[in-house]
């Protein structure tokens, strides 16, 4: 019990589950309702995880719960369509506060279907997989989402389809009244021999805080290829706990990039990849540039369960002001997973004495014929590079900006969609221009 946070939001949720929430969900199947009840029981018992929980040791959710959150009774109006990526040719799906907005969304190419809540839940093939990939176990925050999610989306890529146009899910958050809770989830099914690209971006124009619980479950069938990009450019008032669980079967390839470049006050990303087939490939990229009192926490797990899999992970981060960044990367190599190659790197630059970085790369290896390594560094810019730029008459501030761009370019340059790459670089520049980089 002592591992939990039991605050007003918790009390509100405890009460609301049966009184309000279940009443709205009467259209759902019995099996899903049973799943929700089970998940609620876990959440009710454990509450939100506190820092006494090893996985939340450096990330204090109490920072988020300065306000008491409630689900909104009424959705605020939304009209403007921000968050377009200039020059990007993509099929756009717009979610506003977790609700799909059909009029803002594009039609999808053949071979891909996108279903939203009622249609998705009506099909047992989809609703039955809720919580089957992201198994809740003892994870109370996952339980919270399963119990309370309001919307459920499915992106289904059919077998042997090559989808050339990227699918762009644009998440918007708006509202200016009370502190709001939002909870929804996404299921992505990539059938065998398919190849597709999913871009997710986060935007907000909030005047009041939002606590968002977003769970996405990915299943990559045999020889499926999926590229995903996750770009967060939301404003301060967004507090996000994102859990992504990926299962990969034989010879599938999963490429993910996770970029936290906005000003959201609190971001927690869990990215767990379970490699359930042999011959899989997993590439995880990440960057975070944090300032002010931002808190960004990236937890990743790469779990090699079968032989002959390769995984590569590269996360780079820059901390300014009073920000706090956390990186925890776990690599598991299970007893059968011989011939595994697993690499992980986390580089950080700390630009302020008030900022904190907690990095915990972790290897747990139970097979002997493997090559695994990880590296983690925390440091500053190369003085030589700085000096070179200064001798060319570039101001300290401009030089720093350049070096920051160059530092994260190792990650950003690996994004293979040029319009997205430009967008990311623009985001970073805007962020850096806002800040005073010279630290007294």
């Amino acid at each position: 019990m002592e591992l939990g946070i039991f605050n007003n939001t918790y009390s509100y949720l405890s009460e609301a589950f049966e009184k309000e929430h279940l009443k709205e969900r009467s259209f759902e199947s019995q099996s899903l309702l049973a799943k929700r009840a089970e998940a609620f029981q876990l959440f009710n018992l454990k509450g939100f995880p506190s820092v006494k929980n090893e996985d939340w040791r450096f990330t204090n959710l109490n920072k988020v719960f300065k306000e008491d959150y409630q689900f909104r009774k009424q959705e605020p109006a939304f009209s403007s369509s921000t968050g377009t990526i200039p020059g990007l040719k993509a099929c756009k799906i717009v979610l506003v506060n977790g609700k799909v907005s059909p009029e803002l969304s594009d039609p999808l190419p053949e071979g891909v279907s996108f279903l939203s809540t009622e249609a998705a839940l009506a099909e047992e093939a989809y609703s039955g997989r809720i919580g089957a990939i992201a198994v809740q176990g003892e994870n109370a925050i996952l339980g919270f989402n399963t119990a309370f999610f309001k919307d459920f989306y499915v992106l289904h890529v059919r077998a042997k389809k090559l989808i050339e146009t990227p699918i762009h899910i644009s998440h918007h958050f708006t509202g200016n009244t009370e502190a709001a809770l939002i909870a929804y989830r996404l299921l992505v099914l990539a059938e065998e021999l398919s190849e597709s690209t999913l871009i997710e971006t986060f935007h907000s124009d909030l005047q009041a805080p939002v606590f968002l619980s977003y769970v996405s479950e990915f299943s990559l069938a045999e020889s499926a290829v999926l590229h995903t990009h996750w770009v967060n450019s939301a404003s301060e008032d967004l507090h996000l706990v994102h859990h992504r669980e990926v299962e990969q079967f034989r010879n599938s390839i999963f490429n993910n990039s996770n970029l936290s470049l906005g000003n959201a006050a609190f971001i927690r990303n869990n990215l767990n990849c379970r490699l359930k087939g042999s011959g899989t490939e997993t590439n995880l990229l990440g960057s975070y540039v944090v300032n002010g009192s931002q808190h960004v926490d990236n937890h990743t797990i790469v779990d090699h369960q079968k032989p002959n899999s390769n995984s590569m992970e590269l996360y780079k981060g820059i901390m300014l002001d009073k920000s706090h960044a956390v990186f925890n990367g776990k690599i598991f190599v299970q007893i059968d997973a011989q011939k595994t190659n697993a690499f992980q790197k986390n580089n950080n630059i700390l630009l302020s004495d008030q900022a904190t970085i907690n990095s915990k790369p972790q290897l747990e290896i139970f097979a002997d014929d493997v090559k695994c390594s990880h590296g983690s560094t925390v440091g500053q810019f190369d003085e030589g590079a700085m000096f070179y730029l200064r001798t060319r008459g570039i101001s300290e501030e401009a030089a720093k900006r350049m070096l920051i761009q160059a530092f994260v370019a190792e990650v950003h340059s690996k994004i293979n969609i040029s319009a997205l790459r430009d967008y990311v670089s623009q985001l970073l520049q805007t962020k850096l221009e806002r800040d005073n980089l010279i630290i007294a």
Partner: protein
Amino acid sequence: MSKDDNLLESLADNEYEYGFTTDIEMDVAPKGLNEDTVRFISAKKNEPEWLLEWRLKAFRYFLQMKMPQWQNFEMPEFDFQDISYYAAPKKKTLKSLDEVDPELLDTFNKLGIPLDEQKLLSGVAVDAVFDSVSVATTFREKLAEQGVIFCSFGEAVKEHPDLVKKYLGTVVPPGDNIFAALNAAVFSDGSFAYIPKGVRCPMELSTYFRINAKNTGQFERTLLVADEGSYVSYLEGCTAPMRDENQLHAAVVELVAMDNAEIKYSTVQNWYPGDKDGKGGVYNFVTKRGICKGNGAKISWTQVETGSSITWKYPSVILKGDNSVGEFYSVALTRNKQIADTGTKMIHLGKNTKSRIISKGISAGNSQNSYRGQVSIHGNSSGSRNFTQCDSLLIGDRCGAHTFPYIENRNSSSVVEHEATTSKIAEDQIFYLNQRGIDTEKAVALIVNGYASEVLNKLPMEFASEARKLLAISLDGSVG
């Protein structure tokens, strides 16, 4: 593959060399743990009132504490009531070595630790701890000429109470963790050394620990104080007989280094590791910590861990003084069902502090070997530097190697680097050696020794050769 199997078999079959017992008249406290046990031990040792108070305070901490849950191995059930907390060879208060029980001298001779000063060639001063008490300390007079104090903890309490009182529990407070609290409550003896200002200790100081009695735990405490500008190198070795039940060893080591002092602390740990089915063996739960109190101080830990069924220890350094240096060099070899969870903590508080961590894990058989470490650079610790390298070598497909580094940095002018690798012995290396007529078993021993040499080279010379031998023997019955 068959060669590999042979190797593994011989690995598993290799017997523990120091598994004999000594038949000697013992003074053993009844089993059980309560305030009376603490009072009993204190009374046995004629301790002053303040120390008894201190023990009782620690015991109260112990009662409030729970067993930790964060380890990644299955924690055995502990019955703290089923152990005897005091066992000492009878015949006490020795004037000189001649009065030491010949059976005891024999035991230490068998272990290769001659206590007879005449025969000592190596020039190492030894404090020999047998079960709960120190039986002999050699070269005391010679050390005293330089002002170096080296004696058993019990004697130190009587002869140098001010020093003990000043430093006891300042680095590892009694409430630090459950085993430290237990140790503080029931510690029976240990070693104490004080190196005065500006003295370079003329010889290596060494403690040799031996568990002999049945159903006992060993709880010793070492306190080492190096005053300004002094230098000391300290060695520690340990063995225990083969027994079917597990024995608990919960020691505390505290090091204090003042301005510009240097302490080099080396351990070769070879407690009984249990048999190949994991039966018996010593639980080695030790709290070791040093503090670089003064500017420019240096503490260096070197450890070779081959024994114990479970090892759980993190020799740490608190870098408080500016420009102080902390080092940790470790080789941990596990086989059969051994578990080693070891690493270090480097806490950077002072400016321009530097730390270096080199950890080499070797796991064979069904064993689990973990590195768990923390590097923490605080806000005021500007210009600080850490480098960590932890490598794991796997021999056989049923063992595990794990790495849990915690890296925390709060200072923008400090640099932390960490790297870790895990792999098996490369086949091309074995092939190369085979080609030169070296058989696979010897090749493995050679490669492991080469792999660990970065750490072994940090050991004092006498210990280094012993450690190399120990590694070879632990690895392979037919080699070495």
